[in-house]
């Protein structure tokens, strides 16, 4: 300390200088501690309020009345998601197809709601309601249309997926043969006695990979797989692939959907404006 302040008279007391230095440090540290305490208090109050708000929001969400099996705000968001998907929907996008050798045998059986073991294929009719005049088609009527074969993935809403081969006719071909009198937005499909039912938007129904199928993996459908006729709609989850169809109905009212009433997304994925534009081309 050669250029420091002049040392006052008297002997330089090292202890005093040291004490002053320590006091300065202590004062500084106390000031820092006080400041950090202030920061902490302020920020923890903000954090507490934010946490309480988050928790409140969660409690609010959990206590909302259900609509179609889920709290209504969740249902609203499912519908928003559906509109977004509909706006971006491209009907030319296809479900990936596979080689026959990739088919997973035996085809997994799942979902028996609406099925009864007794199938009377002879007397079975597919009735189409909401057409210009009510129609009841036999299997032979359907077989007269161009046959389609499709090897693709069946994706269950539970999370598993299998590769299956379908044989049948395009739903679009059936709809072209039995058109609705004027453009419609939806199709409803039901098993006999309405044990199971699905709602479909027209655009999905008309997708080229949507089939009314009578055979799976080259074999006629067993009753568990939905004999005599079921829907194969690979652009949707398995729950939409309704088995043993008895009735198809054209409608402009969004149809009831078995799982859609039980908390699931009744996801159709297509915006209404778009659906109307498509339906005009039936």
């Amino acid at each position, binding site marked *: 300390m050669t250029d420091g302040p002049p040392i006052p008279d008297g002997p330089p007391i090292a202890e005093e200088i040291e004490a002053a230095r320590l006091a300065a*440090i202590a004062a*500084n*540290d106390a000031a*820092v*501690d006080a*400041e*950090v305490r202030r*920061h*902490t208090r*302020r*920020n*923890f109050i903000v*954090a507490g309020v*934010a946490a309480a708000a*988050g928790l409140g929001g969660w409690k609010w969400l959990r206590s909302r009345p259900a609509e179609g*099996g*889920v*709290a209504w*705000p*969740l*249902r609203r*968001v*499912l519908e928003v*998601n559906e509109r977004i*998907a509909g706006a*971006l*929907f*491209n009907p030319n*996008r*296809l*479900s*990936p197809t596979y080689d026959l050798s990739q088919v997973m045998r035996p085809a997994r059986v799942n979902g028996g709601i609406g099925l009864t073991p007794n199938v009377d294929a002879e007397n079975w009719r597919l009735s189409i309601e909401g057409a210009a005049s009510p129609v009841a088609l036999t299997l032979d009527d359907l077989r007269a249309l161009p046959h389609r074969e499709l090897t693709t*993935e069946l*994706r*269950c*809403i*539970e*999370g*598993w*997926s299998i590769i299956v081969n379908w044989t049948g006719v395009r739903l679009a071909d059936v709809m072209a043969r039995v058109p609705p009198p004027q453009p419609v937005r939806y199709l409803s499909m039901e098993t006999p006695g309405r044990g199971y039912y699905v709602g479909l938007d027209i655009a999905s129904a008309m997708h080229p990979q949507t089939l009314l199928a009578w055979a799976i993996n080259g074999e006629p459908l067993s009753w568990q797989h939905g004999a005599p006729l079921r829907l194969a709609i*690979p*652009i949707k989850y398995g729950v939409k692939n309704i088995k043993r169809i008895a009735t198809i109905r054209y409608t402009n009212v969004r149809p009831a959907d078995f*799982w859609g009433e*039980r*908390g*699931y*997304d009744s996801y159709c*994925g297509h915006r209404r404006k778009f659906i109307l534009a498509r339906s005009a081309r039936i």
Partner: protein
Amino acid sequence: MKRLVRKHPLAIRWFHWINFPLLALMIWSGALIYWANAVYRIGIGHLTLLKMNFPQPVWKALHMNYRLAEGMALHFFFMWLFAVNGIAYVVYTIVSGEWRLLVPDRHSLREAWQVTLHDLHLRKEAPPQKKYNAAQKISYTLIIVMGLFSLLTGLAIYKPVQVNWLAALFGGYAMARFFHFWLTVGYVLFFVVHVAQVVKAGWNNFRAMIIGTEVVSD
């Protein structure tokens, strides 16, 4: 002498603490969905070391069985908030330049190894660091990359036909689901290590993630 040092910007603190409950909700609702088809395992060939599943009584005790529909509805609700918060965080780190402190460089791998040895008390000296050490840089960047892949694999499972090219990129629908699941396991492991490290680092470090400043003595 103590001094206050600014450590975490306000925005990063908000992103971090908003992400915490959102990720927890995504994992929980994801587990409600996974219950319906809890098929994954750790094993080689026919030898299964660990089934990624609980016995049904455990699922029941956790009140997590038969809630697939609810799980999906929650997942497709909170996915928006989770994605928006994550993207906002990434944009913020880029715009603010914080990314420079976060993204690892070519020395990071070697240094991270040294940090690990130091943490395990196998090495005396920790390598010099700025805000984050090399192990932190790698984990905090990796977790963001994982988040991106969770969004992409999730989208591939959600719309496997509309984004069939994306599903194909992951090896198909079933593989996309596989990756989506294991990424989640990765978050859980990250969480365990992260919390252990925070506990080890102490109060001053933890408090900085809330108040932004840290007390430094020199």
